[in-house]
């Protein structure tokens, strides 16, 4: 076993993990953060996206030890102090959620985008979520929701 220490959703967390454990499994299985979804296990669908030091990563491909000493944000860390993140509010208001399975990954990709580029163009929004698959929404309302959140 190895010891992993990371800053997770604003709080320092230390736990023992298998050396080859993947970040998605540590989050979901060991820490109970099941908001992060795993839908392909191959980094092709984006459902497991979390933000690692400001960058969106597919946590099903990231060895958990890569998060050593770094900052990880998951969907559970998006709201602060009981207040929803503007992206979360916008997803609700614009009907960007249907089955919701891709939603956490979409939100994290969008958060990483807005953190580095608060006023993206529509094309930049589309590129930022182009690795996140959705079968329900046709993406239209997701793009609208991100656009609205970025112009607030």
């Amino acid at each position, binding site marked *: 076993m190895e010891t992993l220490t990371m800053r997770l959703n604003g709080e320092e967390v230390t736990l023992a993990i298998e050396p080859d454990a993947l970040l998605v499994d540590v989050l979901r299985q060991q820490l109970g953060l099941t908001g992060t979804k795993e839908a392909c296990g*191959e980094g092709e669908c984006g459902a497991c996206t979390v933000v690692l030091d400001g960058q969106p990563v597919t946590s099903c491909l990231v060895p958990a030890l890569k998060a050593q000493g770094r900052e990880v944000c998951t969907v559970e860390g998006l709201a602060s102090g009981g207040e929803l993140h503007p992206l979360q509010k916008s997803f609700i208001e614009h009907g960007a959620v249907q089955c919701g399975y891709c939603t956490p990954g979409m939100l994290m990709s969008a958060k990483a985008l807005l953190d580095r580029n608060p006023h993206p163009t529509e094309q930049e929004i*589309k590129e930022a979520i182009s690795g996140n698959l959705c079968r329900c929404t*046709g993406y*239209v309302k997701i793009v609208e929701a991100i656009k609205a959140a970025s112009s607030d």
Partner: protein
Amino acid sequence: MSEEYSFVGKRVPKLDAPEKVTGRTVYGHDMKLPQMLYGKILRSAHAHARILNIDISKAKALPGVKAVITAADIPDMRIGWARDHPVLKADKVRSVRDEVAAVAAVDEDTAREALELIKVEYEELPGVFDPEEAMKPGAPAIHAEAPHNIQEKMRQSYYHGDVERGFEESDVVIEDRFRLPFVTHCCMGTSFCLASFSPSGDLTVWSSTQMPFLYQRDLSMTLGIPASKLRVIKATIGGGFGSKLDMYPFEPICVVLAQKTGRPVRITFSREEEFVSSPTRQPVICDIRSGAKKDGTLTSREVRMILDNGAYSSWGSTTPLVMMLTISSLYRVPNVMYDVVVAYTNNPYSGAMRGYGNPQATYVVECHIDMLAHELGMDPMELRLKNANQPGDVTGQGVKITTCGLTECIERAAESVSWKEKRAKPGSRGVGMASLIHVGGGARIYPSDGCGSTLKVDDFGKVTLISGSTDMGQGADTVMAQIVAEELGVPLENVSVINTDTDITPWDVGAHASRTTFVAGNAARLAAADAKRQILEAAAENLGEEVDNLDIREGKIFRKGESEEWIPFAKMVRGKHFRPDGDIILARGWYEPPTEKQDKEFRGNISAAYGFAAQAVEVEVDTETGEVRVLKIAAAHDVGRAINPMAVEGQIHGGISMGLGYGLYEELVVQEGRVLNPNFADYALPTVLDMPEIECIIVETDDPAGPFGAKGMAEPACIPTAPAIANAVYDAVGVRIRDLPITPEKVLKALKEKEAGGEAER
């Protein structure tokens, strides 16, 4: 119109969205019970083989393994509507997805390791992978009961009028063959099942099903567990699209593993397993002949189809019944003949998928309408308008069309893409369109097509609708809450919806056939009306007033015509409750659509309303690469009334993305029965970058049978997209692609053939 309503017609955000955007929703994949084990399934190594021996001894001996089962451990019952599918295979495997053995272990890794320790000896048999080959004399028989590899129960012939005479009377007759591929649902959340027995032997199954009550029946029949001891809880699922309409082998397997181990067992599919072992849309080979008079009047339509059933009969083989609606009734056609044969192969078996056969039927019919128009020298839009279904029509199949906005849909979709200006212009851009008809008021496939609701109003004015309906992400709960709030006259935030549990909710046939808003919506409205009557009667007694003089709005009771002295309705509820002869407000609603089952000649009005739509698209074709880029899709849908326009748009957008994938990108590549692309790297699901501009045009025809005028609309959005694209490609560059998907390779090849002066294209 909707202005007079408080909640109907409003863009109400989904009730479950706050939970979903915060990651708090617990999906079946996230569930864990104390002592829970993980189940895994060993599938066949061959597409067709005899099983000679299965050795499970090493797997059983692996530490952490709690059970290993084979066919010997479960009742010899066959599943699927045709009862041709053993749960675990004993003597023979018929496809590579066939379940041979299963294990339950303390964790997934141990379960996987155990599968590798199971040794199966096979004797390979020659396989057959093409439905036409399968029906030839001498082809290897896949089921002893079907020596010619034909699913005889689905061999159907339908007719109205006299097609031959229709063709004789035609000025133009064309005939073509189309082929439609394997595609699959790609729900973001894979299939799962969690089974747990109580110490007293009661079984609870948390399932990804869309049809909890039929599932309860099927599971009970398969395992011999009384349905009265079997509770199905529909856990939150990551999309359905029809894939969860049937009960599949993994589900009784999961229950048997729980039975053998005395512990809860969960089976969750990996993505690869979902691609290989969940159902597909059925591939179709279709010959179609269409005739028309010089002025464009349609005369005759003859359709012959061969369906690849795969190795077993799930719902996919029954889709001809739905295809028949389009073939018999899309546009006014006086003479129609439809003949279908469903052939067993050693391929994956197909199931229900959004549209249930209609995307295939509409592809063929709508491409052919376009081809007829070109043959006649007519504008394809004008040909459609000339033959469009109209309100009051009764089609040759006995389909009674009540509300019908098809003409308006065609005109408005065309206008949105500037049809007249853009059609038949030089260059490599083009416009195309396609229409559809689909059931929109339930579909009487089973003896009951109904839905039950109960509704309780508590002392604080909280209204709980308990509905048989199923929400799989489409937003049914929210629409039900809007209907109840509107009918009862209470604020939306007072209403909650429970619809997940066969122990609690009244019966419903399930979420299929775009029926939930219509059927469950009517049931919810009836329950709300019943509650309102009870509350107003209590209030009338309390206030010494006539019931008819009272009404409820915004949660307050008032005398009609007077705005003063409004009384909170909860006060009247309490007034009725807390007295010696008191009672509570408990209401009910059961809605059974006024429809009929089809007779032996497939005639009858199976739906209480029909949905119509037209989509028009503009494409640009790169003649160097063959790549088709869709620039815009205008989707005009007759939805009766949009109870929630935002949700309606969401269904249209999502349907279009599925139709776009069907038209241009998606194909499950199956070779010798094996799926060669069981992952998102190789199966091209549309991404956000593939989506064109979409204009949703909601046409409201206010259906008298629908709740507040609504008709079903969810499946239709994916149905006309692919033929509209194919027709636009023809308008752009003059090539007709008859086999989906329309890949750059096919377009290039067709362009080259056209240049070389090959067969005259339509």
